[in-house]
């Protein structure tokens, strides 16, 4: 939704609690426990599940309501899977090591980058029906490689269980005026992290 108008003023809450109700805390924790138990799942598929909510529901529902809808769907899937009883279960004494270990999408493989810092690139004008992390506002726009973050799993394929397709991710700077026209400040810029498959030579 980057660049859309009409979403209203930012509602700031002072001294905001981490969770606004116990059910939010439980949904957060359940989601992480389910991710641990669901060895066939991945974070990209999980994000895609949220994106597949009907747009009107997506805008109406609170953040953790969306998480709840996803957790319920995932639970139904696991409950229907007779092999799920063999899945690992997150125990209390495993939580801190799970958090500390994290789950990096970085892949330690040597792949020659197609672009170098300073190079001009164009974000491809692609409009896939499935999961993608190329924001609409950057499609077709000219930018410059600011830095190469290294090699990461490609969400567009992993979200659909079509493989990791590891590739370089770059921080690409788009001048604000390239994105938004003359209304934008000429000094300003937006840095977007983009996978190599999202980019072409300019």
């Amino acid at each position, binding site marked *: 939704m*980057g660049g859309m108008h009409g979403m209203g003023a930012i509602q700031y809450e002072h001294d905001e609690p*981490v969770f606004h109700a116990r059910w939010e805390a439980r949904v957060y924790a*359940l989601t992480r*426990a389910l991710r641990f138990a669901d060895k066939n799942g991945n974070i990209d598929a999980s994000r895609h599940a949220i994106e597949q909510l009907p747009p009107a529901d997506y805008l109406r529902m609170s*953040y953790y309501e969306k998480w*709840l809808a996803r957790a319920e769907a995932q639970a139904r899937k696991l409950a229907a899977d007779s092999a799920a009883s063999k899945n690992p279960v997150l125990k209390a004494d495993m939580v801190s090591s799970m958090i500390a270990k994290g789950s990096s999408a970085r892949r330690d493989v040597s792949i020659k980058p197609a672009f170098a810092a300073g190079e001009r690139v164009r974000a491809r004008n692609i409009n896939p029906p499935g999961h993608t992390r190329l924001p609409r506002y950057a499609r077709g726009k000219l930018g410059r490689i600011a830095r190469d973050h290294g090699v990461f799993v490609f969400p567009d394929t992993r979200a659909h269980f079509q493989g990791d397709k590891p590739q370089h991710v770059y921080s690409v700077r788009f001048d604000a005026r390239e994105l938004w026209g003359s209304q934008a400040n000429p000094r*300003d810029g937006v*840095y977007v992290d983009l996978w190599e498959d999202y980019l072409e030579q300019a």
Partner: protein
Amino acid sequence: MSHEHQAVPPDLTLRVKALESLLVEKGLVDPAALDVLIDTYEHKVGPRNGARVVARAWVDPAFKQRLLSNGTAAIAELGYGGSQGEDMVVVENTPQVHNLVVCTLCSCYPWPVLGLPPVWYKSAPYRSRSVIDPRGVLREFGIEPGGDVEVRVWDSTAEVRYLVLPERPAGSEKLSEDELARLVTRDSMIGVAKVKLP
């Protein structure tokens, strides 16, 4: 319960209880692990971690150098890392450059140093406007970078998580690292506030 003619949405608390009961019964979830997860993000992981990173960078130029060149490794020196902070980049505010972090796609945020994101960060108004009108957003938060300042917006569209290293406030020269850490707010590390002396 009829699903076809449900006028009132089912109570969220009840739905969550039902979900948890089902998963515990199926042996897929251990409720004690949920308690530990919640306690971790309510009491242990939060913006106080990020504030310690910032204060260290302000008092230790060599650390600051490492922080800006390899954020993940430098942050790990203070013992922070893991989930949603596996690959960190730290961007420095200066008199010439103001950095602002957003995730227009959803809610990506550096959990190990800032904790879980506030509601406004995940909200449609912030996600939609921060890229097209960052100066308007900053004005709403009460800061107005001058015309000679470059505003850089970092859209967290991949797996890299961003932390803003705010400017050290003038007049803080005599403060200790601990005292400095107490000045650093969550908002200053997202880039929607400056650090001020009390």
